[in-house]
């Protein structure tokens, strides 16, 4: 759903988490939403759909984080997941060159399907394992810049960089939503327009159809 950000109402954003199997997507989002890592006391049954409420510069933001199945056999299902999302967090493992290649594929696909409407974050996770690094920061950063994404370095284990990543992403999505709203002129009443192919806009107020639409021959 597009950001329903009219007036004093709050923003709702959908963010998809993309990345290969073992890059630490789940750990990252659990760390962010529950501040837990490999904890025995994690009470949540699942880490695939999590929400977070934020307050950014006085505006309320509801963040829904959608984990996506990252295994190769589920690759073709991507478009079903990231449809209508406002942001995407693409995670790779800095010790795993392949996972970075996967991120590149995702970026291509996302740009192709959603254009520039989506805020992209490329995240190098597991920076605590810097000694085994296989993807250089410079390379990743220059790539991110070349595709209009932002690059972040995080560690779910040490809880570093994750809070900043999501905060920054939210701010960018808010900006994008406000720009979109302004370009539309009137941001109100768009909640249903997300998937409707044809939207009929009536420019003259109609009489209420009470009896009206049923009495003419």
């Amino acid at each position, binding site marked *: *759903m597009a950001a*329903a950000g009219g007036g004093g*109402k*709050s923003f*709702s954003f*959908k963010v998809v*988490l993309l990345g290969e*199997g073992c890059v630490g*997507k*789940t750990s990252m989002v*659990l760390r962010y939403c529950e501040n837990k890592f490999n904890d*025995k006391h*994690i009470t*949540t*049954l*699942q*880490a*695939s*759909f999590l*929400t977070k409420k934020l307050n950014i510069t006085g505006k309320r933001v509801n963040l*829904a984080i*959608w*984990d*996506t*199945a*990252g*295994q190769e*056999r*589920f690759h*073709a*299902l991507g478009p*079903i*997941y990231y449809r*209508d999302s406002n942001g995407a967090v693409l995670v790779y493992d800095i010790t795993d060159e392949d996972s970075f290649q996967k991120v590149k594929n995702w970026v291509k696909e996302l740009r192709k399907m959603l254009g520039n409407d989506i805020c992209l974050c490329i995240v190098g996770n597991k920076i605590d394992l810097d000694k085994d690094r296989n993807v250089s920061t410079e390379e990743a950063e220059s790539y991110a810049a070349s595709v209009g994404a932002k690059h972040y370095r995080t560690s779910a284990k040490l809880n570093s960089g994750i809070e900043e990543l999501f905060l920054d992403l939210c701010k960018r999505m808010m900006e994008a939503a406000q720009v979109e709203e302004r370009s539309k002129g009137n941001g*109100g*009443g768009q*909640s*249903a327009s*997300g*998937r*409707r192919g*044809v939207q*009929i806009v*009536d420019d*003259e*107020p*109609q*009489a*209420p*159809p*009470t*009896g*009206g*639409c*049923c*009495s*003419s*021959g």
Partner: protein
Amino acid sequence: MWTDKQRGIRLSQQELLCKNSCGYYGNPAWQGFCSKCWRERVRPAEARRQDNRAGADSTPPTFSKFEEKKNMEKGRRINTMRRLFWGSPSPPKAEPSDSQMNVLKAFQKLEPGDFTGFLKTLRSPSSQRLQSRCTAFLNTMEAYHALPVQKQSDLVQDFYQSFADYFSRFSEAELTQTMEHVEKLIMTRLHKWVFCHDSCDDEQKDLILQRRIRSLNWVTPQMLSVPFPDVQSAVMGDPFLPAITAIIEMDAKRAPQDKLVCVSKCSQHVFEALSASNSEPANADDFLSALVYVVLKANPPRLHSNMQYVIRFGLPHSLMAGESGYYFTNLSCAVAFIEKLDGPSLNLSPEEFEGYMRRRRTPAAVDGLREVACETRHLLDELTSRQERLDRGVDALNVQLQTWVQAVHAQIDQATSELVLVQEEVTDLCSSSSSPSSSDSAVIEQVVLTDQYAGPPDTDC
């Protein structure tokens, strides 16, 4: 020559004229009246009908009523079509009046999930305008049930939109809640008209999907790498059974949101089953694999139609955002995965996959049967052993019971013999003209003795 006459429909001039005999021609669409007479006839009927509706909104009208309505509304089609497509049935965007504010407040006061309360509020005189809008919309939709389903979907979504505009002063949560009620009200009524509609190939696709799922009945959880308990006890059964039941239940619900609730319930059960075999919270990969397994096992009836129905007529909010939206997306993914399933995605070579697919067609049915038979035999074995244990228990209990009865008999015998002794003693004492006090003590003794053996010895069994 005469065969021609028979074939053609012959109507006399008289029959073509308006039934009101006003001189104009009548039209079968207006039940033989001319347009003017028809309009005059229909108007009071319309008003009456709306009154009836207010009283018995939830009771579905009978078929004859529908027929009547269909006929009546055919004539109005063109005009209403124009109205529907060139102007939306949205209310005039006037400043909310006092009465309107009162209506809004009444709706705001409702508890979440209180659908009955919502209906009551809707039927109260103050919100009559809202109600008549609902009724009018429902009538129109029923009259146009032959429209292509996509158009119907657009109409319903526009209706939601216009309703949402009416309640635009509500907070987001209140709006969502009210809109859910509206959806339930509208779609419960429209379900039979628009579900699995003739204008689309939903039914065929349902069959294709069903056949596809059935042809994949050999897929095991291991192939899908679903975390599954290794030791499967025959009696415990499938840990995903609650999820399977929930997804099958979806077809029985009418309102899109109720169907979504089934999907959510199914997903919750999947997570519970996963948590039993995995200490960490389930991630999307585990969840999707398990959901694919559940769908394959359940083969939910009319799955494609149900999903299309939710997409077309559900509230966009609940479908796009929120937890139920996520689960529904995953269900879509699972179906897409099943449709495109091939060897590599099950860690099988294409040849193996083909083999499985082909084998099931002729001898593989036996394979499935054998599996079922094996399972059943296990169950039977377990049941037999249980039965034996039970029999043994019964025997032991019987023996215990008999010994107890014997013991009781022995005790009674003993007590009677003692009683006889005591009685003899008493009569002896009496006959030898004893003092009353000693006889008293003897009686007391007797009572004590009988008391001792009165209760059955419960501890024995």
